């Protein structure tokens, strides 16, 4: 288990380095960072001063090293819009985003997993077809269309709920539903196929052959195995808690990280974009790491360390 954990940690670290390198390369490729960060109409002396101050006149590898240093000390630059620290700007927005994504995640899990399991168990039944239709619809209707349709129905036509903004919990209902439905559909589809795969395995037949009742075969033999691949997609959903609502936040004018990102991209506010990119990547890498470790718990084959039987 120790070696397994260590291997996963190293892999995560390598990916983090790659993400940071990516940000560095893209930032350098996209033009003169001093010019970009200072703005196009900054006086040349100021740009030069900035360059010296930030070490941009040093050789590239020195810059690369110091870039790492800066990032790991939390210095992610300042927003060119209002000059505040990018990291602070981003952190401020996180609670608002979580207020949408966490309840949505609950909906996804509570709806998607049981639906997928039941569809697999009652394969080709009316229930299965209904779940699959729901899954296909959830996949093919983009969130902005779904969101706008919900607005049209519940806000414009019926007038039950507000169409946007963040004043009360009622404002969160439509965006949470929009996010939850799509994810639940994807999860249902995935759970169903994982379950079908497991139900076709020889050990399921073995369990039946030793007289285990079907309900118990499902609960005790099929579900623990089907959980293993399903954890991946759930992990991805956790990893998307911060950045999974970009489009929906825009649809509902919800002041979260996603909307900040969209505005920053539109304004080419690079420090903010870079900050969000790194933050999201870290979250996702952490989630992947947790998934990997969970694999180790769920799947004894991955724990390693155990030796093959000796003669």
């Amino acid at each position, binding site marked *: 288990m120790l070696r397994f954990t260590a291997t996963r940690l190293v892999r995560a670290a390598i990916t983090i380095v790659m993400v940071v390198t990516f940000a560095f390369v893209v930032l350098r490729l996209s033009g003169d960072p001093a010019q970009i960060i200072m703005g196009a109409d900054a006086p040349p002396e100021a740009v030069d001063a900035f360059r010296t101050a930030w070490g941009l006149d040093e050789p590239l590898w020195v810059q690369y090293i110091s870039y790492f240093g800066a990032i790991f000390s939390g210095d992610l630059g300042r927003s060119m819009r209002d000059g505040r620290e990018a990291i602070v700007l981003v952190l401020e927005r996180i609670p608002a985003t979580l207020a949408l994504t966490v309840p949505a995640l609950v909906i996804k899990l509570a709806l998607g997993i049981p639906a997928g399991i039941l569809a697999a168990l009652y394969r080709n039944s009316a229930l299965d077809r209904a779940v699959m239709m729901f899954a296909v619809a959830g996949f093919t209707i983009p969130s902005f269309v779904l969101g706008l349709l919900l607005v049209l129905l519940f806000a414009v036509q019926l007038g039950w709920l507000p169409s946007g903004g963040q004043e009360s919990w009622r404002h969160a209902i439509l965006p949470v539903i929009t996010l939850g439905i799509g994810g639940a559909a994807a999860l249902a589809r995935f759970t169903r196929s994982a379950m079908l795969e497991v139900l076709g395995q020889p050990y399921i037949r073995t369990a039946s052959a030793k*007289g285990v009742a079907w309900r118990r075969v499902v609960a005790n033999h099929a579900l*623990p195995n089907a959980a293993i691949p399903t954890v991946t997609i759930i992990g991805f959903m956790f990893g998307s808690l911060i950045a999974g609502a970009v489009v929906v936040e825009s649809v509902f004018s919800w002041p979260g990280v996603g909307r900040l990102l969209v505005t920053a991209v539109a304004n080419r506010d690079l420090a903010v974009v870079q900050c969000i990119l790194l933050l999201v990547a870290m979250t996702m890498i952490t989630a992947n790491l947790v998934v990997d470790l969970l694999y180790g718990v769920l799947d*004894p084959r991955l724990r390693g360390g*155990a030796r093959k*039987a000796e003669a």
Partner: protein
Amino acid sequence: MTAPLVSLRDLHVSFDGQPALRGIDLDLARGEALGLVGESGCGKSVTWLAALGLLPGKARVTGSVKLDGQELLGAPPATLERVRGGRVAMIFQDPASSLNPVHRVGTQIMEALALHRGITGAAARAEARRLLDLVGIPDAARRIDAYPHEFSGGQNQRAMIAMALAGDPEMLVADEPTTALDVTIQAQILELLRALRRERNMALVLISHDLGVVADSCERVAVMYAGRIVEEAPVERLFDGPAHPYAQGLLGALPPLDGARRRLSAIPGGVPEPWAMPKGCAFAPRCPARMGACEAEMPSDVPVGPAHRAACLRVAPARMTAMQHA
């Protein structure tokens, strides 16, 4: 003759309208070892999966399967669950994937103990350990907590056997139990099955494509071809005087271990596909002794000698006269 432990009558199975079994009649006495031989797709595994109700839902099964006089086909699930693992246990070809990878080997054995013998807790653990020890797992006390992937192929098959023994069954169906294993490991497993059977007076059905394996461990053999039993005989009789041309062909195709090397008498062609089943004898197209009548109707079983029957139009009369002279 006492009533058989299991008797199959006119067992038919089809998948999506294509026949897999085309009328199987077979009896098994208590404590008897029966070998079921045939090439892939002949229905030898399907027979027993069907008998225990383990085929997927799309399979259509008709006929009769009686265990001690009790009909199993169409029996309620609760009845079948008591029979499976309790009276009839089954082990499979690929031991590594037949054990659940996320549960410890001991736990999987204890599950069967709880179901069929009502033993739980520490007693179950002790019994599981005893069973693992019995099937020859070294250091059973420690290995009881191992996972299947920590066992070798041979050890996994031993664990499967221990699990099968947990319900103290009257009969064990072993479906190609050694096919995935190496020769020396195969010898170990066959030896173990033989010893266990002797000790417990347990009936054994050994399904195999390998005549040698069956000959080695069984008293009686049934040879299957294209969903039917074409010949059934005591082992020595089959090896000394196979009646059906297919059985003759199979024996002739087996390279000898001693004596002069001879050209093998290979059976030409291949097994007919389920969708292109000949109208008459399924073996007729490959048969060196076929005649017109073979292609017209399906031959029925003809007694060839004591406990020896074959489904062939050609050989029956000749063998019978030979018998009378003998």
